[in-house]
């Protein structure tokens, strides 16, 4: 029995592409949940989703120029993040309107460029839904490098980012550079999106940013606990999803997101204090007593 389980777990690791995929998944699962904690707490899910879609033209142009798609995505995501930040700060349009305009325009531009390329549909599928099993060694290093930079920034600026998210007025009183820190957070989210793109793809990106962090939110009462628990859930989901896709032969990105969602539903129903079941039980108790 134990040998069977071991065999079940070890079998996929005989393939180098699976090992690379697993490593990438673990990194992405961790990174997304940590940065995603801010996305959840600040209500930036739409921003994250838009950012993921808006990098399509960058990818398309990199494809045309035959350079690593990563660089196209990187440049485009930074431009979009800062662009949305700038446009919504002007105050003529609301933030979600600014996001909507930029997001749709970029997506259209990306599709337009890609549609001029012959045989683009296969690659488009990979871009939209991810292809974690196609992660190359170079991709892995880029993911690790950028991922470490983002995590370092989150750790080193933990108390500052916490304050600007919880109470911007206090941040101003403390003379923290509120704008710089807000933009920095946008850039950190942008980098996370780029790093995670190959694993989950454009369409499912927002799930990695939001779902593990939201699950952790239901289970904790401190931000750094939320980040750690979120990272564990994100990593577990990524690995489980990858095994699922290996054995059941479903698309890896979709499998990862479905496992994440299952965790979320469990927490939503059964989380102590914040879960639905407990709330319901408490209400019942109150009625009885």
């Amino acid at each position, binding site marked *: 029995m134990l040998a069977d389980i071991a065999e079940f777990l070890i079998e996929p690791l005989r393939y180098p592409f699976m090992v690379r995929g697993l490593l990438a998944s673990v990194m992405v699962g961790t990174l997304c949940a940590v940065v995603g904690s801010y996305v959840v707490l600040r209500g930036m899910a739409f921003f994250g989703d838009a950012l993921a879609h808006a990098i399509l033209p960058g990818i398309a142009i990199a494809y045309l120029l035959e350079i690593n798609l990563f660089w196209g995505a990187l440049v485009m995501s930074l431009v979009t993040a800062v662009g949305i930040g700038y446009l919504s700060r002007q105050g003529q349009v609301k933030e979600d309107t600014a996001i909507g305009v930029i997001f749709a325009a970029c997506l259209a531009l990306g599709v337009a460029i890609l549609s001029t390329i012959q045989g683009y549909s296969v690659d488009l599928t990979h871009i939209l839904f991810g292809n974690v099993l196609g992660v190359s060694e170079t991709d892995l290093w880029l993911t690790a490098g950028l991922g470490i930079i983002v995590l370092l920034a989150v750790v080193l600026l933990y*108390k500052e980012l916490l304050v600007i998210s*919880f109470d911007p*007025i*206090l941040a101003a*009183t*403390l003379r923290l550079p509120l704008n710089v820190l807000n933009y920095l957070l946008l850039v950190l989210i942008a980098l996370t999106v780029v790093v995670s793109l190959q694993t989950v793809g454009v369409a499912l990106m927002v799930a990695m940013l939001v779902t593990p962090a939201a699950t952790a939110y239901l289970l904790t009462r*401190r931000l750094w606990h939320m980040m750690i628990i979120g990272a564990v859930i994100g990593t577990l989901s990524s690995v489980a999803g990858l095994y699922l896709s290996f054995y059941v032969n479903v698309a890896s990105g979709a499998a990862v997101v479905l496992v994440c969602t299952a965790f979320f539903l469990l927490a939503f129903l059964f989380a102590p204090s914040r879960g639905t079941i407990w709330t319901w039980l408490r209400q019942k108790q109150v009625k009885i007593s």
Partner: protein
Amino acid sequence: MTPILKVHNLTVRYNGRDALAGVSFSVQPGERVAIVGPNGAGKSTLFRAMVGLIHAQAGSIETNGAEFGYVTQRSAVDWSFPVTVHDVVMMGRISRMGWLRWQRPRDREIAQQCLVQVGMQDYADRQIGELSGGQQQRVFIARALAQEATILLMDEPFTGVDTPSQEAILEILEQMRDQGVTALVSTHDLNLAVERFDRLALLNRQLIAYGPPSQAVTPGTLAAAYGGQALWRGDDYAMVLGDIDCCGEGEHHH
């Protein structure tokens, strides 16, 4: 004595209209100032402009080196945010800790002392959303103390807070006066402002009156601040204002 705070000709414009027009006043160390006015009078704007969160078109603020501590309006805070009482108080230490630094034992000690001072030390590990309104206000006062702020700005601390909690907050303010902490408190409750504060600022975009409550509140200044809503019946302003001020039976505690 030199004032600890001098606001001179402060003017803030929003969407083409004056939210604050030429507001000037000064505050002595340790004084407790109530800022009273109708909704939209610019009470929050005044505080936000003073700490630099809102850009002022004109005017100056001198604090003589004193630091502002801000007790945020309860409706402006996300109470489901995953932070504990201890975390919130520790936020006040951030500028003392400096960039890229973690809290040291001394910071934790100060945070603990500040919690003791507001009587919230037993709640350090609670998530802030689990506290009552008055307890939340006390935690935010502790945060300002941890910041070593000497001018406390409190935005509507008594809104949605029961009478015992209100008393507890006023008592803490009284203790803090002995430490030389000055407090500016915005409130809707004119009764309270008149009875419990050293000075009263009557605000409606302009500073209509400023001084000891008995001098600042007159039929004329009230009419200027509240327009037709203000009623005046002889000397008994407290009674009458209690009626206007929506809180049902005037709450007197002597």
